[in-house]
């Protein structure tokens, strides 16, 4: 049942990454999933449970855009609550990495 430590770390910051991407511009799940897969090597499927949870918690909202090729695409937009959550998570992440860097890379 145990996973390699890097996968645990990645899963922990997945939400932060998604909110960060959406704060830059609205996105659809496929795009978000492939960006995260490229950048941090996550399984692409993991993004869907996360998007559902963010939606239930009111951190993102969805809207559909007609596509010229094929069915309409579901876009995600970050909400005001989502932005507030992003600020909280970002500062927690920065404080955490600073502390860990101080220990891991702290040799003088």
């Amino acid at each position, binding site marked *: 049942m*145990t996973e390699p430590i890097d996968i645990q770390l990645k899963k922990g910051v997945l939400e932060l990454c998604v909110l960060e991407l959406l704060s830059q511009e609205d996105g659809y799940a*496929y795009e978000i999933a492939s960006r995260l*897969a490229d950048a941090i090597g996550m*399984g*692409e*499927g993991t993004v869907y*449970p996360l998007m*559902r949870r963010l939606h*239930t918690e009111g951190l993102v909202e969805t809207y559909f855009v007609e596509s010229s090729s*094929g069915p309409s695409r579901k876009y995600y937009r970050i909400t005001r609550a989502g932005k507030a959550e992003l600020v909280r998570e970002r500062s927690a992440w920065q404080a955490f990495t600073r502390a860990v860097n101080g220990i891991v890379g702290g040799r003088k």
Partner: protein
Amino acid sequence: MSGRAEFLTTLRAGLRGAPAGSIDEIIADYNAHFEEGAAASRSDAEIAAALGDPLALADELRMELRIGKFEAAPSTRSAAQVIGGVIAIGAINTVVLCLVGPLLVLLALGAIVAILAAVGTGIWFLFAGASLGLPGGIGTPVLCGLGLLTAAVSMIAFLLLAARALISGLARYARLQYRFLSRESKPGTPT
């Protein structure tokens, strides 16, 4: 087409028991993912591998649905479903469950006994308290009775709040666990 059909069928099977509307939505999301991938000229097998284990995803999605339902409308039923889900995904060690579970039940029983006792003595004070001949006349037993009854009401409210907080905490804990302990070991190795 086999990679896609197999992934979606396994996912649907893993989601059995969830509300039909939610299942359809989830399947549509993943089907759209295959569509997008195909448009980017990836093969279905390739996309399925990149998505990960559909059963692990189903576990996570089903738990998410249960938590969402409980938070939207807390009830004994939705609470039981969250607890059931937590046990089903193995987020809680059975040993811990066997130790803490009975303890919580005992605590709850104790609280219920205390509430019943407060209600009982409260009513007794109201109706039979006058025979005690306490100083202060009839007012004293009536006030004692009312006091005990309101105490009982606030204990009930406190018990409900505590139960709700406990389940929410459990849900949050479960989320951490399945994010760390889901059956998906590595992206690209569906079982």
